[in-house]
């Protein structure tokens, strides 16, 4: 019971390699498991999540937002909203944390092969999309057209800003950035994500849309996707809930019979529609 493989509550000990300040509210943590063998053997799929521990403050769930194709470190982006995230934000390179991962299901990235992919991310909701996007860029030949629409409230609220120029420049993906309100020296789009999406008018033909963001954004994005002709099965999202155990036992993240920590966090809209409306 002394190894994380035997004891599902025992985290891997890990060391923070680097902390990146993404926005005033979001920091990214790049961590490596202390046991080199555990780090080498660590397997996960894009979309899976992990529980980060600060011993003394507690544990919370975050998506692993580095792709499995890049194993130099595991990356988690954390928005400061409460006690644990506040404590995480105070940590620096070299500090010790616990990592329980991987947990939950993954994006259906195999079934998405050969299809055009439309990513629609809002705010911190870009984090889980980043995993899948980088995975697809690292396996570029397996996927069709890749489009990214990423929006935030203001330019300063845009996470991963250091990567955006590369994405904008790539000729094998189409990137559109937007902010809610006009801002100085902002060369990109201005407007709410669902409206910009409708203007972009991506074809639903042989396509899958993957969206994540605040609940209100997801709601109107799904409406927009429907207007554009995307069927429920072609819309994928990933959910958040308050979680504790992360393995379907502790009983708080369920939507009816489905436990978001274990049966999710990734669901198609077709799956969500069959569940009780308790998001």
């Amino acid at each position: 019971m002394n190894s994380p493989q035997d004891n599902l509550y025992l985290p891997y000990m890990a060391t923070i390699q680097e902390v990146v300040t993404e926005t005033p509210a979001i920091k990214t943590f790049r961590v490596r498991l202390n046991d080199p063998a555990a780090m080498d053997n660590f397997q996960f799929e894009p979309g899976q999540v992990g529980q980060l521990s600060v011993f003394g403050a507690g544990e919370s769930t975050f998506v692993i937002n580095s792709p499995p194709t890049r194993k130099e470190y595991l990356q988690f982006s954390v928005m400061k909203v409460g006690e644990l995230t506040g404590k995480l934000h105070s940590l620096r390179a070299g500090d010790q944390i616990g990592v329980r991962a991987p947990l939950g299901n993954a994006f259906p990235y195999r079934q998405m092969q050969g299809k055009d992919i439309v990513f629609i991310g809002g705010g911190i909701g870009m984090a889980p999309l980043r995993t899948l996007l980088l995975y697809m860029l690292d396996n570029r030949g397996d996927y069709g057209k890749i489009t990214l629409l990423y929006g935030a409230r203001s330019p300063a609220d845009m996470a991963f800003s250091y990567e955006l120029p590369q994405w904008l420049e790539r000729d094998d993906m189409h990137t559109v950035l937007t902010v809610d309100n006009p801002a100085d020296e902002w060369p990109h789009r201005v407007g709410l994500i669902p409206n910009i999406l409708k203007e972009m008018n991506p074809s639903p033909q042989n396509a899958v849309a993957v969206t994540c963001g605040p609940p209100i954004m997801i709601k109107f994005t799904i409406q927009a996707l429907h207007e554009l002709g995307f069927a429920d099965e072609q819309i994928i999202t990933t959910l958040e809930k308050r979680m504790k155990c992360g393995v379907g036992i502790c009983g708080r993240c369920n939507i009816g019979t489905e436990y978001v920590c274990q049966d999710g966090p990734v669901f198609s809209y077709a799956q969500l529609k069959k569940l009780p409306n308790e998001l």
Partner: protein
Amino acid sequence: MATTLFIQRGDIAAWLADTAATHTVYAPLRDKTGVHFHRLCAQDAAAQTQALELDRQAQTPPKNVLLPACETLLEFSYAKQEDGSTSLDVQPVMPQGAVLLFGPRPCDARAFTVFDRVYDAGRGKDPYYTARRAATVVASVVCTRPEQSCFCTAVGGAPDDTEGSDILFTPVQDGFIVRPLTQAGEAVLRHPLFTEAAHREEEAADVCAAARAAVPCAPADFTAAPEPVAALFDDMEFWQSVTAKCLSCGACTYLCPTCYCFNITDESNGLEGRRLRTWDNCMSFQFTLEGSGHNPRPTKAHRYRNRIGHKFSYYPRIHDGALSCVGCGRCISSCPVTMDIRRIVHSAMQRAQCATPEQAHE
């Protein structure tokens, strides 16, 4: 399994006292507040068992034995190193030692099978629970004096049910006819106070039959509840009306032998601390409150809907029809505002039936 045995009523205390030398023994004892499962001290077991009470239902279920109200999962300590860095040591704290739980009614023992499906299944084996479960012998006593609030037979159980038990004690005039159900149960019965009693099996069967007949009639067979309860999900008027008087106190969850939801929190003192698991309560607003301030179950109606949904619909749909309620009735007898889960589930079933008249004729 070994043959049927017999023990005199007056010898139970001696057997428990002897067993307390090798096992942590829990038994229902009378105390100032009623009847509760207490741990017997090896030295004092003989005196403690004077207060043994098997004729009344314990007010609190023995779920503490397998799922402590508060347990340490991990201990951690930070230490300053000479080079100025801080090291961190984290060690799990695993349950130790053999346990005998004597005297739960069969409903309380059956409740452990509700846990087993969740804590000891493919979805994630809980090492703390499974260690306790494997080390615990459950010796149930046939329930011959049901409470007015009992309804075990309406949820698939019975006062002589053996599910979840290792031994079944059937009370008779002069003592107990004892049936070991597992090898672990058989082992704790290897004691000179038990005598061979195969010839009294029929007598035990008669007691069990009488016990089944004595269970109060429930308003419905709740094993048929999963579909109707699910069908009422969006009927907020119903959930609001049945929870109008609920205080959200959570007594029902803490007293429920099948409620197993928990919280995990850290407690630290200087450089040391522990990660704790504690019972949690789905009737609390904080249970599902998210960091953003959003709450998927914002009112007591939403929360009670999940409580009933989980016990009578979601859980049975995941676990082959088994309800997450054993009909012990504690949530009824202890509710400060007299909410009655039997009436509520029955109303839900009736209301769902009225909403779909075409199905009612099938």
